[in-house]
């Protein structure tokens, strides 16, 4: 089979990057017209970060964490509290006032994002280290429980002066330009790709394949598991912070377990162990969530109301999709492969040859 040489691939990659940039510039120039589309793309980019972070943990290391919503909440609240303009704070905390220590504390967005990520990583370490030292089976339960608790704690009246309790936080300043989200997402995912391709990443994969064998080869199980968990928590926290800025107002209900399940659906659909799969999955699922909104509205065809269509039907479809993928299409879109120009070329080649083979077959049938 013909293989593309390096130069063609480089040109294609640059062409793709330029195309994406031009598309963004076009959307930016016509912001008013495409605000809905831009919002979908931004949300997809934010989900892509957390999906890749989850995939690094689940797909590459074989550890199962279900605390994404909780870690995102930590990042989101950190960023929200530190970036709401000081002069707006009295109106946000109009019920109980803000804690004195935080009244004037303010950080630029990038610093707040990093701090949010670090806090999420710290809390992740607190939970993960004792659990990972023993059986990683329990990690899923411990983190799932944690993410429920963090919601309860955020809404607790004792923290009213910090998190504004159940009233939530609003007036979070928006991104400076529409490029911000995409640049940050690109950087985060790039760092994760570099980690996965480093010697640490190979150790993660060894742990996924066989823990006992990996340990026998001299990989420190506990160190590597703890490391990947904390790194994943960091990026989950960052994406939570971005989500807070994107949504402009958050409360504890934003970070329900359903959010974690949505991310899981993205990772499974994209393929466990494929970064590009997770990215494609996040754009696909986020867009589909919007397109499929009509499932939630009553559908009337020729004056006859189709009975199934009403509020909540969309989520039932989503859960059925998740089940169908797990049961019948376990590899997801990308399996554990990554996107490559060679792969795309082969795919198109195969598609074309199949079409070509089919067409004469059909003609033969016609002759009979």
């Amino acid at each position: 089979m013909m293989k593309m040489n390096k130069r063609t691939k480089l040109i294609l990659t640059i062409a793709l990057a330029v195309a994406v940039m031009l598309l963004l510039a076009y959307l930016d120039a016509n912001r008013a017209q495409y605000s809905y589309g831009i919002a979908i793309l931004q949300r997809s980019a934010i989900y892509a970060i957390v999906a890749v972070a989850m995939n690094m943990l689940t797909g590459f290391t074989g550890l199962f964490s279900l605390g994404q919503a909780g870690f995102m909440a930590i990042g989101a609240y950190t960023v929200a509290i530190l970036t709401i303009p000081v002069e707006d704070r009295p109106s946000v905390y109009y019920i109980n006032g803000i804690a004195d220590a935080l009244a004037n504390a303010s950080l630029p967005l990038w610093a707040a994002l990093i701090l949010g990520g670090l806090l999420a990583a710290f809390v992740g370490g607190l939970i993960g280290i004792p659990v990972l030292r023993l059986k990683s089976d329990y990690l899923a339960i411990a983190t799932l429980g944690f993410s429920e608790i963090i919601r309860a704690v955020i809404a607790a009246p004792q923290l009213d002066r910090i998190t504004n309790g159940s009233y939530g936080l609003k007036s979070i300043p928006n991104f400076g330009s529409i490029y911000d989200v995409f640049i940050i997402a690109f950087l985060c995912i790039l760092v994760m790709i570099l980690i996965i391709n480093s010697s640490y990443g190979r150790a993660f994969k060894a742990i996924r394949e066989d823990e006992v064998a990996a340990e026998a080869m001299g990989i420190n199980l506990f160190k590597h598991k703890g490391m990947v968990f904390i790194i994943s928590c960091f990026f989950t926290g960052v994406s939570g912070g971005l989500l807070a800025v994107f949504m402009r107002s958050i409360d504890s209900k934003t970070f329900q377990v359903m959010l974690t399940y949505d991310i899981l659906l993205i990772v499974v659909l994209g393929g466990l162990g494929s970064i590009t799969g997770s990215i494609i999955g996040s754009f696909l699922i986020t867009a589909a969530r919007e397109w499929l909104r009509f499932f939630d509205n009553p559908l009337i065809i020729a004056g006859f109301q189709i009975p199934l269509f009403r509020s909540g039907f969309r989520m039932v479809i989503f859960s059925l999709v998740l089940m169908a993928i797990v049961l019948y299409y376990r590899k997801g879109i990308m399996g554990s492969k990554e996107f490559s120009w060679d792969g795309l070329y082969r795919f198109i080649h195969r598609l074309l040859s199949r079409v070509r083979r089919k067409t004469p077959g059909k003609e033969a049938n016609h002759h009979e």
Partner: protein
Amino acid sequence: MDISVFLQHCLTGISLGGAYALIAIGYTMVYGILRLINFAHGDIFMMAGYFMIFAIASFPWYIAIPIVLIATIILGVLIERVAYKPLRNAPRMSIMISAIGVSYLLQNLATYLFTALPRGYPTIPLLKKIFEIGPLSASLVTLITPVITLVLVYVLILLINHSKAGMAMRAVSKDFETAQLMGIRINQIISITFAVGSLLAAVGSILYFTDRMTVFPFSGALPGLKCFVAAVLGGIGSIPGAMLGGFVLGLGETALVAMGYSTFSDAFTFVLLILMLLIKPTGLFGEKVTDKV
């Protein structure tokens, strides 16, 4: 604290613990056999709550209860057949994701079918009858929950130790493949396990929701997680352990609520889990299992 207030709280705690214990057994049995955290178990428990609401609408309670039990068993076995059985030889990650998928599906289905608003749980007059013992007062359900739990656990242990199916169950949990080679019908045994687990979850749901009064699509999520923790506390795979874990959690949680820390009563469970894993990872009654190469 007054002694009678203290006893009153103890009674509440034991009653809550009894319901937890019944759910925890379902987790511990499934984990013992399939090494699977059955995330859907809490939602089976929630569905049993809805079954009761609909059953009682058209039948008297003594017919409604058996209907609920049978419907829950059917649901549990059906879930196993559809979502777990095809993945018997798949990596453990896939079956765990499938379990989450079922939980996600049941929650969304319940939201879709019954709306997210809490529904009132029917009161069975007999269970709600108030008894007064000296200064204590308790409804019948509070008093009989621990009794029912103890009786059911006793019967279950007898069955597991002395019946043929129980022996097969123990064999399967010891060594899946060898048991299969010895002619044990694995699928049948796994179905029985899910049936027993769902039955106990249904009994637990009747006892639990009679006290709580309302059911909503997410009312199974947190109790489900807590009961898995209870199973870990007692040593996963051990039925008396799961029961003890359930009682410990129920009492601990009630104690925290009584002391005024109700916000943190849920967090308590998971702190307990982490502490237990640090101090005695095999749980109270668990056996040490080494990884086989």
